[in-house]
């Protein structure tokens, strides 16, 4: 599906195996950590029919396409006593292309698929100090949910 974000034409679609390299690169650029193994596992699960969704946003050129953003998630049920719920595990938009509605569109794409998969809500986890992502998710209408994350050093 193609959306014209002001003057920028952005194409949104489910990720394919040949997107892996660009996803790993953008993830490293945004998070500062290279997680090649994690992404390989994600793609293996995705294409093995084990669930999960990855959507990407790309800018198409004459010969190639540049990845501008991605979102990853899946519907999970009954863990922690939770009804079927769409979980967003990761979201990234190239810093040069932010504030142009790309993250919002990726969020809508994955939420729509979660709904088709039987989820009635969408959930994510954000570091308390990560104001950028927390503000983004709140701007999509997300609020504190019924669960609190607890942890302990072991």
């Amino acid at each position, binding site marked *: 599906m193609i959306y014209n974000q002001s003057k920028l034409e952005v194409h949104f679609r489910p990720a394919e195996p040949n997107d892996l390299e660009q996803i790993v690169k953008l993830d490293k650029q945004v998070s500062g950590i290279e997680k090649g193994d994690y992404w390989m596992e994600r793609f293996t699960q995705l294409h093995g029919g084990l669930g999960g969704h990855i959507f990407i946003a790309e800018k198409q050129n004459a010969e190639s396409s540049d990845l501008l953003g991605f979102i990853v998630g899946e519907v999970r049920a009954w863990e922690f006593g939770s009804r079927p719920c769409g979980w967003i595990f990761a979201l990234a938009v190239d810093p040069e292309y932010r504030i142009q509605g790309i993250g919002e569109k990726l969020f809508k794409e994955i939420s729509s698929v979660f709904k088709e998969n039987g989820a009635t809500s969408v959930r994510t986890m954000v570091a*308390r*100090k990560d*104001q950028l992502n*927390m*503000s983004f998710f*709140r*701007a999509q*209408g997300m609020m*504190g949910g019924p669960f609190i994350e607890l942890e302990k050093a072991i």
Partner: protein
Amino acid sequence: MKLQKATQFGLYAVLELARDPQSQKSAVDIAKKYGISSNHLAKVMRDLGRAGLVASVRGAGGGYRFSGNSKRVTLMDVITIFEELGSDASDGLNSPHRIDIEDALLSVLFEIDEITQATFSSITLDTLLKTIHWRGQK
């Protein structure tokens, strides 16, 4: 949690004006709408003006208009004009002479403070105004 009156009034006023950035409203009109003291609100408006969030408009029909960026200004930005949020937990954590019970309680208060601050810092005026629309849809 409870915010001080000046903070509450400041949030009412700045959100009321940010809801319609082209409009201008007097402190009396805003005070009347929220059933609050117009004298107190007038002082609050001066603080908001000094912080650059509202600008006074002189002349007939004058009043105040929103002069910030509602997609950037957070609830925390407005709150900190009027009060410092949180308990003394952050100060206490740096004290070298804490008793164990004091230490354990402070860590709980610190956790609550961090969540409170993260929440207020992540909600822009624009997002809060959008929640009015979302709540109406429910």
